[in-house]
Each structure stands twice: as structure tokens, then as C-alpha cells.
């Protein structure tokens, strides 16, 4: 039952307790039938009022954002924005819907990289088999991102711009050394993933800018990837999650290691430097354990209702060890 239903029910109950209330109610019911419906509809609104504009083109969307700045929010998949609006935690004055703009979604392979449009939905990444083969890290992470219904709607650009530090994709973008093309009505610039996430739900995007492309560099040859996370329930935000990529050299020594974590800080955490000692070395168990211990010292999880900070740090270490071992094994196994 909605609160609104309850309130209307209560009003009727009030009538019934009055002398002759039933007769009054019967007479008023007819008169109020229309009003009641209006009341019901008005009180059934969860989000606070806003002005809705369906942008017809990227230029239109950027012009609107230039005009309204922080008063306006872009609406992409809406899987984080709409819940925040339903709770009235977010009360944007203007919603610029970008869903009907052609060309904002899509996966565009080019030399040495793949460009992903911001309106590309998780589901599209899951269904594109050549994309999934090129980025096994993303293929492995996608099933952990919420649920099928949310993956059908949620977008990559929306996710990254929302910048939830517990979310998987920001950490993946760090691990892959993604670059973001952002655009305003006046200019265009590129931001490295490492400079994009400024804090919890905060990015380097200016009030007049939109993330218009995510460039993912193709992994080098002999690179193994692994994504792991531990969550209380399938699809929940993780207690800790890790994206690991290991590139091995000709003698099976570690040439490059990328490590990025989600859920253990105010931003996604690039912990690649924890593995500096592995570079040039064979990925032996003791060497990996040393890197893992170093990683645990680098993070400052805040703890939450499901896990203390110590437990999050413990989980991050266990996952890092497993993910590094698995990534190395995958290179050696040839996938």
C-alpha cells in the first residue's frame, strides 16, 4: 500500500465517524470522484517536480546543459538517478533525457582501441561477442553488475558519470587505462580515467560537460585478466571487488600489472603500484603475496553495515591474490 492510498483511506474514515457521514460520503463521493483521482495521481508522484526535456541531438543536450548547469541533470539509463529522485535525495530542476539521441550508443572498434558510446547499455556489451572476447575483464565483471533488468537499461556513460565508488565499471576503467572524451557546447577534451574520479559521486566533469565517449585501449598480447568480487547477494554492491590484468613477457616474467578496486574507498582505487615488486619477476606465490600485502596497506575502506573496514581490507587482499594468480594462469593457458 502506498502512503497516498493510506491517506485517502484515512480521509474517508474520518467522514464515516461524522453524524450522517455515510450520506455525506455518498454525496461527496460523486463530487469528489474526479478530485480524488487528481489527489491520488498527485500524491502518487515520487520524484519532486522537474521540467523534462527530451534532447533531440547532442548539440541540443549540450546547449541545454550550458544554459542550466548544475540545475540540470542528464538522464541516461536512470538506474541510479531515478531511485535518488524517488527518494527525493536528488531534486534536479531540469531533466535532459538523452535516450532518444541517435549515435550516442554503440561500440566502435578502431586501431588499438575500442570507442564505447556513453548511452551503450550493459546488455549491449554482454551481447557483442567480439567486444566480450577483446575485453575478458569486462565480460567477467558484467554479470556482477546489478541484475538483468538493470543491465537492460543502465548505461556505461551514466555509470561512470555517476561515479559510485562501489560500482564495478569505474574500477574497470582504471584497470584498462580508459580515456574519456567529454564535450560541452564550446569545447572538447580528453580525461584519463586516473584523473576522472574526484570523490564519492564526484567527477572532473564541469557543469556544462557530458561524457561522450569511453576509449578502451585493447589489451596487449599475453595479457590475462580477472575480475572478482564478494557481495552479500548476487547483484548487490560488493564488500570489495578487484579488476586485475597481468601482461607476461617472453620469459613469463611480469611485464605489467594493473590492479583496481571497487567498494573500498571514496573513489575507485588504482592499486597497480602495489605490484611494482612483481615487474620483471616470475609471478610466484610469495611474490604475489607480497604485492597483496602491499595492496592491503594502500587502501582505506570505511566499513559499512555489512563489513568492518578490517574485513573489507582482508577481502580485498584475498581477492587480489586470487585474481593475480588466475590472471597469470590464464595467460599461460592461452586465454
Amino acid at each position, binding site marked *: 500500500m502506498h502512503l497516498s492510498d493510506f491517506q485517502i483511506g484515512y480521509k474517508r474514515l474520518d467522514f464515516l465517524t461524522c453524524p450522517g457521514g455515510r450520506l455525506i460520503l455518498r454525496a461527496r463521493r460523486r463530487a469528489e470522484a474526479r478530485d480524488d483521482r487528481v489527489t491520488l495521481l498527485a500524491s502518487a508522484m515520487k520524484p519532486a517536480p*522537474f521540467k523534462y526535456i527530451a534532447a533531440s541531438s547532442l548539440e541540443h543536450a549540450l546547449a541545454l546543459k550550458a544554459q542550466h548547469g548544475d540545475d540540470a541533470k542528464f538522464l541516461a539509463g536512470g538506474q541510479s538517478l531515478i531511485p535518488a529522485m524517488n527518494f527525493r535525495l536528488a531534486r534536479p530542476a531540469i531533466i535532459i533525457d538523452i535516450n532518444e539521441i541517435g549515435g550516442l550508443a554503440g561500440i566502435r572498434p578502431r586501431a588499438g582501441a575500442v570507442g564505447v558510446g556513453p548511452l551503450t547499455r550493459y546488455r549491449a556489451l554482454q551481447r557483442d561477442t567480439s567486444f566480450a572476447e577483446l575485453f575478458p575483464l569486462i565480460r567477467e565483471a558484467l554479470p556482477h553488475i546489478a541484475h538483468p*533488468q538493470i543491465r537492460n537499461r543502465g548505461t556505461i556513460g551514466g555509470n561512470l558519470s555517476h561515479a559510485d565508488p562501489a560500482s564495478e565499471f569505474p574500477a574497470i576503467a582504471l584497470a584498462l587505462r580508459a580515456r574519456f572524451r567529454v564535450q560541452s557546447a564550446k569545447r572538447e577534451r580528453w580525461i584519463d580515467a586516473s584523473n576522472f574520479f574526484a570523490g564519492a559521486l564526484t567527477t572532473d566533469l564541469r557543469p556544462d560537460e557530458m561524457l561522450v565517449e569511453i576509449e578502451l585501449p585493447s589489451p596487449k598480447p599475453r595479457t590475462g585478466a580477472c575480475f572478482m568480487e564478494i557481495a552479500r547477494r548476487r*547483484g548487490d554492491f560488493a564488500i570489495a571487488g578487484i579488476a586485475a590484468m597481468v601482461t607476461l613477457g617472453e620469459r613469463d616474467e611480469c611485464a605489467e600489472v594493473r590492479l583496481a578496486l571497487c567498494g573500498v574507498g571514496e573513489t575507485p582505487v588504482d592499486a597497480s603500484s602495489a605490484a611494482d615488486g612483481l615487474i620483471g619477476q616470475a609471478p610466484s606465490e610469495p611474490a604475489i603475496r607480497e604485492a597483496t600485502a602491499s595492496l592491503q596497506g594502500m587502501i582505506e575502506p570505511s566499513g559499512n553495515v555489512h563489513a568492518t573496514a578490517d574485513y573489507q581490507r582482508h577481502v580485498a587482499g584475498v581477492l587480489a591474490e586470487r585474481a593475480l594468480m588466475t590472471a597469470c594462469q590464464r595467460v599461460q593457458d592461452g586465454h
Partner: protein
Amino acid sequence: MDTDRHEVALSVNGIRYTRHIESRLLLSDFLRHDLGLAGTHVGCEHGVCGACTVLLDGQPVRSCLMLAVQANGHEISTVEGLAGKNGAYHPLQQAMHDHHGLQCGYCTPGILMTMTAFLDENASPSEDEIREALSGNLCRCTGYQNIVDAVMTAAMRMRG
């Protein structure tokens, strides 16, 4: 206060509707209050429970996480459209009935919409795949086992 209203034209279960609605009206509330299609249930209203799942152009989505104005020009399917014209149950509805896949029934419309779309794409799903597909729909009565059994049976019957 001035309300921001828009005209929407959309198709729900194959029927065309045109309505003049406020922009902040959620698709779930639009279906229930404006169109009277109260089979779409509303549970958490922030995208966790899955009770409000409908199909948007054939794909399951949370109708509480979409504005009704965004459905303009799109096709929506709800639980009311599942049964055949003669009232015959969809094979999954029949299997849910046969396997006692519901108790209070509150989550059932969302589960039916999620899993009928799943079965359309996966004719022979494994039990694990079914559980994964079900992960976005909360049921507090059944413990899920009977729902999984029902989906397995429906898949078998639909393969013929």
C-alpha cells in the same frame, strides 16, 4: 505550482494509448493509475525488488526506474498481456500454478515478465542460468525452489 506535462503515445500489450501526463510520473504508476493495469506491482520503488518488471520493447526493465514520458513511442508489455485471448494461461503461468511457484503472489507479475522474456531467448536453460536470471526478483514466500521448478517445466513444455 505549474506542472510540467507532456503528451505520450505508446503501446501497452498491443493497445495504443495517448495520454497527457506529468513528467515526474513513473511508468509503474502510469500503468497502474492512468491505464488501470494494476497487475504491475510496486514494491520497493527504487529498483531492488523487481515486482514492477515490465517489458520495454521486449526487454525486461524496472518500471519504477523509468519515467512514463520516456515510454513515448515505445512498446510495453505487462502481465495482463501474458494469457492468450481465450484466457488460456501462458505456459509459465500454468507451470507456476502446477508447481506452487507463488504464495502471496506479490512478486509474481515481475517474475513472470522477467522469466517469459528469459525463456524466449533461452529455450533450454540450466538451473543455474534460471537462478541467475531470477536474481533481480525478490520473493519472500517461496524460497525460490518452486519458481525454479516451474521455469524448468515451462521450458520443457514450450520446447514441446
